[in-house]
């Protein structure tokens, strides 16, 4: 092979540059931001169970509408199901996994418990680079005057 040295050096440089995104990011994954469950409604639910919020969550005394694994990975599907059920079938109530009936409503149900949209939904969505367009029409807790985010509360 002619110019063996140059070719190999060139290949080595190419390889380094090509894989730059991989090795430059090793060990640098941004940590998932904390999502806050500290809202007045959830605090009240914990109080009713005779526990403080942290304990109540740990002991499963207060829950989401579905179990945690399902809601984290499938909440967008659940919302679509709610949407179709309400708008097209005229059903409004949902029997959740923990023996409770919930109104099937984004603003009146999800955002009632999770009234801290900025400290909860948005934190995860920003991290995941998801930007739901629902808020073009559906009202945020801020618009409804029920927001309980740390910075809004002050």
């Amino acid at each position, binding site marked *: 092979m002619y110019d063996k040295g140059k070719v190999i050096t060139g290949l080595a440089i190419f390889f380094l540059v090509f894989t730059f995104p991989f090795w430059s990011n090793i060990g640098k994954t941004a940590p998932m931001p904390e999502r806050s469950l500290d809202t007045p409604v959830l605090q009240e639910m914990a109080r009713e169970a005779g526990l403080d919020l942290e304990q109540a969550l740990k002991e499963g005394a207060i829950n989401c509408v579905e179990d945690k694994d399902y809601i984290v990975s499938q909440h967008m599907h659940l919302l679509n*199901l709610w949407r179709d*059920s309400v708008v097209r*079938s*005229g059903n409004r109530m949902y029997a959740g996994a923990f023996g409770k009936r919930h109104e099937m409503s984004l603003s009146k149900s999800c955002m009632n418990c999770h009234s801290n949209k900025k400290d909860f939904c948005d934190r995860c969505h920003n991290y995941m680079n998801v930007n739901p367009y629902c808020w073009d*029409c559906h009202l*945020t807790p*801020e*618009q*409804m*005057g029920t927001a309980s985010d740390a910075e809004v509360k002050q």
Partner: protein
Amino acid sequence: MSATRREFLKIAGIAAAAGAAATPAFASFIPGNILWPRGESKRDEAYTAKRWAMVIDLAKLDQKVVETVREACHAAHNVPDFLKVAGMGAGEAKRSEIKWIWPAKYESAFPNDMNEHMSANVTQRPVLVMCNHCDNPSCVRVCPTKATFQRADGLVLMDYHRCIGCRFCMAACPYGSRSFNWYDPRDAKDPKTLVGGRAVDPGFPTRTKGVVEKCNFCAERLARGEAPACVAACKNNEMVFGDLSDPESPARRLLRERYSVRRKPEMGTGPQVYYVI
């Protein structure tokens, strides 16, 4: 091949254990969880009917009733008011206006029930017009995405999530019951206010630029056992709603007692808003 009883039991046992262990992992791969849905239902207090209809008493309508009813409806559904926007030309405002229920002149509401010698008592009164929730809705036939559809109880509704803003339905509707959102209905500066100054009602979503909207017969209020906002705003039974399949419903009773007309029935759409004269 022959297996001893002991070997068979061993294999069966291992298979059962593996199956049990794999179930949670397997379940999480089922898309949207096929074992769903578990129990969506109506509220216990919901109003239901075989065929909803509205009856409007023309003899009782005046400017004041019309204004009260329109305000009640538009406030409950977060309808913006472009006519109140400062700096928007009259033509532009009229074209952008969103209307769920509004007053019309007798001659435009009932063009074929008109003659020049009619009593001024009839022709000079305002007529409240709205979506007719037709039996044979032309808007539903032309909608390419099924965003507008007819429910089993007769109501013609909009699924705003599916509306692509093509406006075929507006062309198809003989009553002009549909409005297009040329602008965002929300006030850009104040998220708690709608264009035109009305405060946002937290009970209902707004719409957004690029979708068509119209009266929904207050499906959201019927679902919690409340009369439509327009009917609730009437102090003197100017508007009555009810189930046409029930001979004892207030709507059927009024239709039995008085002479009634409908808007443009010759179009074949089967309008279900009745006017008693």
